């Protein structure tokens, strides 16, 4: 087995953007199998663009993006979605006119002929977020923000992906809801998931992650441990995130 295959996600020399400009340049980052890695940075740094590139949602991308050893840089999103990568996107973007359970099932389309595996995944989502089980037949539009974020994370889990991409899951949530999301992510890590977590809240990222990257102006500028980040505290915020 090559060394690349031991990483859940291995990005090297990635440039991507919209229209005439590349908004991220020469990105290199790695997420080991079973590792949780944070990607922090101010508004407009290009964090979402990195995640969207991995998912194949940005056509204008060059470099290498390996998911569990497979280069996905030229693949269509619907192929990448078949067990390689899955995301809980910025703004949640649930299918609001459909029920909670239908949203979850739409997350695992490529497993639709493997009913047993789909049942297990569904059960594990309800185990992670017990409230959702009671709401399974509700329209997802009728849920609170925190509950919608749980559905977004659950939908991501349903494809049993090699790498999980989360884009600011804490945004616009109450402190209680943030805590539920953080606990769920810690639980996922315990279950062996590989996670790339985009965050603006350092406290959330340090509680969940093994390692952190800092991004500004389209480039990864620093890599550190959660302890260093906690130690640096306000000075880190002032330097990069303010």
């Amino acid at each position, binding site marked *: 087995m090559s060394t690349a295959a031991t990483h859940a996600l291995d990005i090297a020399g990635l440039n991507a953007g919209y229209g005439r400009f590349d908004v991220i340049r020469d990105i290199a980052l790695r997420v080991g199998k079973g590792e949780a890695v944070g990607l922090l940075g101010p508004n407009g740094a290009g964090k979402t663009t990195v995640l969207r590139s991995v998912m194949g949602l940005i056509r204008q991308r060059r470099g290498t993006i390996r998911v569990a050893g497979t280069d996905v840089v030229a693949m269509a999103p619907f192929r990448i979605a078949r067990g390689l990568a*899955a995301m809980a996107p910025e703004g949640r973007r649930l*299918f609001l006119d459909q029920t909670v359970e239908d949203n979850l099932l739409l997350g695992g389309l490529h497993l639709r002929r493997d009913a047993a595996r789909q049942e297990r995944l569904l059960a594990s989502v309800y185990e992670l977020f017990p409230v959702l089980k009671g709401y399974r037949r509700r329209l997802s539009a009728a849920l609170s923000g925190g509950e919608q974020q749980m559905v977004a994370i659950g939908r991501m889990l349903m494809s049993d992906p090699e790498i999980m991409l989360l884009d600011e899951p804490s945004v616009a949530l109450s402190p209680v809801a943030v805590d539920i999301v953080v606990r769920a992510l810690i639980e996922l890590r315990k279950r062996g998931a590989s996670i790339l977590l985009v965050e603006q809240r350092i406290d959330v990222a340090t509680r969940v992650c093994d390692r952190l990257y800092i991004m500004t102006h389209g480039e990864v500028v620093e890599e550190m441990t959660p302890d260093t980040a906690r130690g640096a505290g306000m000075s880190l915020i002032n330097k990069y995130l303010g």
Partner: protein
Amino acid sequence: MLQFVASGIAIGCVYGMIGMALAITFYVTRIINFAQGQLMMVTVMVTAEVTGLGYSAWLGVVAGLACSCIIGVLSYLIAVRPILAFNRFGFGWLVSTLGFAVMVENGAAWLWGPTSIPFPTILNNTSVHFGEAAVLTGQQILAIATALIAAVVFEVVRKRTLFGKIGMATAADPEMASAFGVNTTTVAIVAFAASALLAGLAGVMIGPSTFANPYLGDTFGTYGFIAMMIGGGTERPVAALYGGILLGLSAEGANALINSRASDWFPFLVLALILVVSPRGLFSSQSPLMRRRVAAAAR
């Protein structure tokens, strides 16, 4: 009195089917296929041709519907997909689908000449009496039944099957649908085939009374568009059927109660009035009529 209501509903169901056909492709791709009327015409012409060659009407209908489906899918691959790939939010499709309509229409006129050719009568020579009040041909009854069945089938597929749910997800957020494994091109191809099938069925219903003419698509495409707009089919494809029935009723009503020319302008007046009162159509989820129901359903 009852007579114009009955025949209004019948012709309205034909307009409604074309409206639903427009709405189904709009639902999935957010574009209006201005070649929809021409897709209806293709079924009519091919059915007439095959029957004229001496084969049975049913074989003609099947061949006609198949041709419409094929050309419908082609309209997507040629006139829609490349345009949307270039700019998903532009209006290039307006020109390209109109251009496709012109091509199909001129192709048909070149093949069959500009004059009408006979169409099989199907059920047009049978009639059903509703007491003293109204008479409908078997063909008109068939049109109503077909439209209702099509609407029910569409809703059942949309709400109860996985493919329908995939279609709803694609309609709501195509990018997220693709991020969860949906091949949105396949979904669009199926939607265009289904919508061509529906337009073709409308053609089979109306053919016995209009005969087969290459320019049929213009009028019926326009009426189908109005049906979709007043019904609010851009948000709920089935609403286009209600719009079609309303349109048929107002055209036949104007004919019976004002004079025989009124059916040319009265429906447009109705359209304008409805769009002033409810810009998104009478039966859309945003209309004053429906808002309360939607709120109740969400609870």
